[in-house]
């Protein structure tokens, strides 16, 4: 039966997948047949439960602790994947480390640099490592972005700029890795109900706006993103390259109101 699944026999690494959107993606890829490495920094118990959910589906899975915003830990994470599986088919760039938030006139250099780095430098270094493990395979690299890369979200400048850089890098990676058979895309989400979003002071406002104004009439859930990421990983998405797909229940159509 499992040979019929679209990602059967493929291996995936999802950063920041102990909870939230990353976890939903890990489980979706598992449901589509992939073996999945679960990455976490502090939430070991949650990471282990994601691994248990994947192994109970009959997938191979392991949890690997690494703060991917640190290049040495990122390198160790890919070393672990290489030693476990020898190759990689799917890399999902999900984890970010936000150290800077607030009005632009209050932002300090070091937390700003760290936040931008944790977005785009991490994506660059991870894609380089992933591409090496995808040699002679139909590799897929997908990054996560959000509407703050294009629109104004109060206090969001460091993250919005980091996401915009990810979207730009997606196009360059798609061009330069495409000839090796690797597809690179980004999925940009609107407000998604996660612990991270709840930490925002504007959470309730975004939830209300989603419910009242957007054509989707509700706030997004992690599975709304995971289902699209899952599709982009399959061969049916073979002709989508270097794109940023907005997946927001139409929130961006009305969020300026």
């Amino acid at each position, binding site marked *: 039966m499992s040979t019929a699944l679209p990602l059967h026999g493929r291996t995936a690494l999802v950063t920041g997948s102990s909870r939230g959107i990353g976890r939903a993606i890990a489980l979706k890829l598992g449901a589509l047949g992939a073996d999945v490495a679960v990455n976490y*920094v*502090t*939430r070991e*118990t949650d990471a282990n439960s994601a691994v248990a959910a994947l192994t109970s589906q009959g997938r191979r899975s392991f949890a690997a602790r690494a*703060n991917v915003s640190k290049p040495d830990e990122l390198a160790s994470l890919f070393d672990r994947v290489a030693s476990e599986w020898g190759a990689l088919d799917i890399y999902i760039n999900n984890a970010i480390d*936000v*150290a*800077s*938030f*607030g009005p632009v006139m*209050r932002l*300090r250099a*070091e*937390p700003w640099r*760290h936040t931008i780095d944790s977005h785009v430098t991490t994506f660059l270094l991870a894609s380089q490592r992933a591409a090496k493990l995808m040699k002679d395979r139909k590799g897929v690299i997908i990054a996560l972005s959000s509407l703050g890369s294009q629109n104004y979200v109060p*206090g969001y400048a460091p993250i919005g700029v980091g996401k915009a850089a990810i979207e730009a890098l997606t196009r360059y990676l798609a061009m330069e890795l495409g000839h090796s058979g690797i597809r690179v895309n980004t999925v940009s989400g609107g407000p998604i109900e996660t*612990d*991270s979003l*709840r*930490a925002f*002071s504007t959470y*309730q406002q975004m939830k209300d706006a989603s419910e009242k104004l957007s054509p989707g009439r509700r706030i997004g859930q992690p599975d709304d993103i995971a289902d699209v990421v899952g599709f982009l990983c399959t061969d049916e998405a073979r002709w989508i390259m270097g794109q940023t797909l907005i997946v927001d229940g139409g929130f961006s159509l009305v969020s300026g109101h």
Partner: protein
Amino acid sequence: MSDTAQVQQIRHKVDDVLKTRHEDLTKTVRACIADVLAIDPGKVGANSSLIADLGAESLDFLDLVFRLETEYGVKIPRDGIRLAAQDGLADGFEKGGVLTPDALERLRILMPEIPAAKLQAGLRTHQIPELFTTETFVRLVAWRLAEAN
């Protein structure tokens, strides 16, 4: 293991670290707070409320946490106290923005530096940062150091 036991375990780990490191952690945390808020370190008391006494805004907490992570080489979850407190709560952490009785009980375990009178029914989630004192961040660092070992 019940999840309250998990929270108790965190509390014990923190207390253990502080047996030997309370003084040096407090000194560093006070210096970091003074730096982030651009105030004289002498004004930062162990029980100072960062918002009420020292004029911090919630945005300053992110700066402070980043400073402490850099100083100690540990990762501090951005919503660490809530994350530690909310695991497996049958009735959830909050309802309509108000903390549940179970959540309050866990916060009393995790935040012994906060007077019990301030952790009473009706407390709203957005009011939690108003409770933070210097000691809150000392304990947060101690927790992450304990987990890193």
